[in-house]
């Protein structure tokens, strides 16, 4: 059998992947790309392709891990480990406090800014800044895999995300050094990845139940055009909620048994981890048992029945069905007219969810897609479509929520209805009601309710008008929802035809200036972060040398040193210990070199000692007698190993 060994350049490096697709999830994130073969694939890591969307801060405020390593810190330092950032994106301070529940984070809102900040490890960071850390990790992962820089990406969001949440996601991408080509809705991305293989012509429904959000989309696919007909969802419903119910139930049982977990962040995190394991196990079996270690050495056994679990989550699963029915109505289709049902998101592995979906749509869901990866794969397909100029595929999405304006009596008048294909626009004409009035205030809202208080405030702005008698000035304001589902506002004087510039202040989130400032800060910070990482590397090495030196000093080799040598080594050790306290890589490296020099003879003595011991070891004698290993023949120049 021939083994391919490639010489020279790696094939992957010959054709650059310009843009990647990123599924930025509540609990896990993934990055994928379309390779030279035209097929999308996820980029794996040592722990698989899923990167937990968890950010671990060191006590000094530096980010020192993202992903699996950060997940581990969730148990040891929950107070400076952030997860579920997606739930905070584009939200107000009170909403975040509600989202965070019992987590030990302070939420701030700076004067003069609509951006909310989370206090962690002595820093106040906005959700996009936090999310950017996850994106940077994915970017680095892609770059390591592809062997070149990656600067562009398509990022997915729940279809039901509003303007502020989309904008926050885009800001996060920018802060991570990514040019965000497109924000794509998760169910749409899933359909795109699915459609790539099957080239289906027909109508499909995508039911997407992730960690934190629920989406449903109904799409029609014909000749490469993936057209969303209707979408619906709930941005407050996901697998995390199932976890919370199980945790609450188990915590109550523990409480009755005299074990309290309330108000103890570390215990709660350990319990949460065990409950997630229980939940996952219950998808495969009727009864699950999990060992939980609430404190070091304190092990307890937790057991759960699937029937109890299903009874617990049934109301939440039921809650997902109303948006499904609404989306069906909005699409003008009946369940019987659907050709396929696609399940996306880890929570769709739960048998009760599958049963309910099958019941509602009257069809067995497709079993041949990976619910965890399909969204990232679809994002990669979209990135490929947008950067390689292929014209056979196009994605036509809709806006999930109606856009409206405030009018008299706190009523919202709709200007673009939900489920309108995007880009979409509407032009409204404004005039003055008082002589010499110089402006008209416009309040833009998103939502499908009638009253201002029930819709989401997007932005307020003033249309500037030159002073004229009442009713003479006429300004046409165009509201445009772009392909990302993000609002743009333009104004034009009707009489002169001149464009007017309007400053739109977002109600939630960052202004453009704030993003630019953060990018500059991040640039400075990037240096800090890099320095710190270099220090950590140097420290690791230094620790090893210190440990080895101390061991050698106490052994027989140490006894043979003379007083001067001993003094020199002790001085170098003290110097290295002091250098470590500076938390700077350079002094550590210098001090380490000094210790290396000082321990030259100690190392020689220790090596001689070790060899002396080894020669007396019969195993080494065997090896020396045998000669070189005949099996260890190098491959010949054809790159094939001959058997």
């Amino acid at each position, binding site marked *: 059998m021939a083994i391919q060994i490639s010489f020279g350049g790696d094939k992957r490096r010959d054709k650059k992947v310009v843009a990647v697709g990123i599924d930025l999830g509540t609990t896990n994130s993934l990055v994928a790309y379309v390779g030279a073969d035209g097929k999308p694939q996820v980029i794996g890591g040592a722990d698989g392709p899923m990167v937990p969307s968890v950010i671990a801060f060191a006590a000094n405020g530096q980010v020192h891990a993202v992903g699996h390593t950060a997940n581990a810190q969730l148990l040891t330092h929950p107070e400076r480990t952030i997860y579920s950032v997606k739930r905070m994106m584009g939200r107000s301070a009170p909403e975040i406090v509600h989202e965070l529940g019992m987590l030990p984070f302070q939420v701030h809102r700076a004067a003069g800014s609509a951006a909310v900040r989370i206090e962690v490890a002595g820093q106040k960071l906005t959700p996009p800044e936090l999310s950017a850390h996850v994106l940077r990790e994915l970017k680095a992962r892609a770059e390591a895999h592809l062997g070149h820089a990656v600067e562009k990406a398509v990022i997915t969001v729940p279809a039901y995300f509003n303007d502020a949440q989309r904008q926050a996601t885009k800001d996060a991408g920018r802060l991570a050094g990514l040019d965000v*080509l*497109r924000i794509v809705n998760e169910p749409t991305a899933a359909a795109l990845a699915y459609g790539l293989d099957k080239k289906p012509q027909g109508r499909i429904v995508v039911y997407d139940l992730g960690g934190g959000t629920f989406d449903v989309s109904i799409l029609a696919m014909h000749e490469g*055009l993936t057209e969303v007909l209707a979408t619906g969802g709930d941005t407050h419903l996901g697998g995390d909620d199932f976890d919370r119910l199980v945790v609450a139930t188990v915590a109550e049982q523990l409480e009755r048994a005299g074990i309290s977990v309330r108000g103890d962040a570390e215990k709660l995190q350990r319990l949460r981890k065990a409950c997630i394991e229980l939940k996952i196990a219950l998808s495969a079996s009727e009864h699950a048992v999990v060992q939980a270690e609430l404190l070091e050495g304190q092990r307890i056994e937790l057991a759960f029945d699937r029937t109890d679990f299903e009874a617990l989550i049934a109301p939440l699963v039921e809650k997902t069905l109303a948006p499904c029915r609404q989306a069906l109505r909005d699409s003008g289709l009946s369940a019987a007219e659907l050709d396929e049902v696609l399940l996306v998101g880890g929570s769709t592995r739960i048998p009760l969810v599958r049963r309910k979906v099958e019941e509602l749509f009257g069809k067995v869901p497709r079993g041949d897609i990976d619910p965890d990866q399909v969204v990232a794969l679809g994002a990669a397909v*979209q990135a490929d*479509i*947008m*950067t390689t*100029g292929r*014209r056979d595929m*196009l*994605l*036509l999405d809709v806006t999930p929520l109606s856009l409206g304006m405030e009018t008299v009596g706190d009523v919202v008048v709709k200007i673009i209805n939900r489920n*309108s*294909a*995007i*880009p*979409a*626009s*509407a032009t409204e004409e404004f005039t003055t009601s008082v002589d010499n009035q110089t402006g008209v205030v416009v309040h833009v809202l998103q939502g499908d309710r*009638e009253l201002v208080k029930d819709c989401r405030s997007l932005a307020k702005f003033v249309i500037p008008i030159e002073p004229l008698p009442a009713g003479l000035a006429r300004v046409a304001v165009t509201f*445009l*929802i*772009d*392909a990302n589902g993000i609002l743009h506002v333009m104004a034009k004087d009707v009489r002169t035809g001149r464009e007017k510039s309007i400053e739109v202040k977002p109600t939630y989130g960052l202004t453009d200036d704030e993003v630019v400032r953060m990018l500059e800060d991040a640039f400075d910070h990037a240096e800090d972060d890099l320095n710190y990482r270099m220090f950590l590397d140097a420290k690791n090495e230094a620790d090893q040398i210190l440990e080895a030196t101390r061991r050698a000093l106490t052994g027989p080799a140490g006894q043979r040193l003379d007083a001067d040598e001993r003094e020199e080594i002790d001085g170098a050790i003290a110097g290295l210990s002091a250098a470590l306290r500076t938390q700077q890589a350079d002094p550590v490296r210098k001090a380490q070199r000094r210790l290396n020099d000082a321990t030259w003879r100690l190392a020689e003595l220790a090596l001689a000692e070790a060899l002396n011991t080894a020669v007396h070891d019969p195993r080494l004698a065997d090896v020396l007698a045998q000669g070189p290993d005949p099996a260890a023949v190098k491959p010949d120049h054809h790159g094939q190993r001959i058997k």
Partner: protein
Amino acid sequence: MAEQFDRPARDSPDAPRAVRPWVLDPATGAIDLDRQPVPGEPEPDHFAILGLPRRILLDAAAIEIAHRSLIRDLHPDRFHAQGPHAVAQAQWHSSRVNDAWRGLKTLEQRAAYVLLLAGEAPDERYRPPPSLLALVLDANEAIDEAGHDPAARAQLAELLTDFQAQRAALGAELADAAAAWDAAQAGDGASAARARLRAVLGQARYVDNLIGRATTALSAPDAADSAN
């Protein structure tokens, strides 16, 4: 402002000719993302954007084909390599293509749209003819009581059948009025055709609203009050 739309059509009233979609250069047929109305020329209407004749009676499939083919060419995703100006222009044009499609999907929408182009805003305070009014009063009573009273529900179900029959008749009348408008839009009978269209459309909307409320009341008794 709306008067400027009410200009005589260049085509003969009997067969308005399909023109090129507005974004295409009239001479070459190539996409011109920078095309602007020349001074004095009005902004293109939905029909012009999609390159459809200005008629109420149009084939639904033809509208869909026009939309699909334009959106495939104009979607901003297509222009990423050409820089931000092209993307912004594509965004603007594709938004209008989508808006036009959304506004012309149904016969009722097209009828309302041609009235709007003629400067007639939809009349919110439309008053139905007396024959309809009597039905409406019965219906309101039945809808209010349909929550728990089985007799009222049965009466409402019966009324719903009446409404649906009325709506079917109005649909035929609407198609007739639409054909009359399509034929007369630029001629002497234009004003009378519009008046007839307005009356039939108003009734149809009224009955649609009743059907919607009655259906909601019958399917979810408790939601009858909150539905709109």
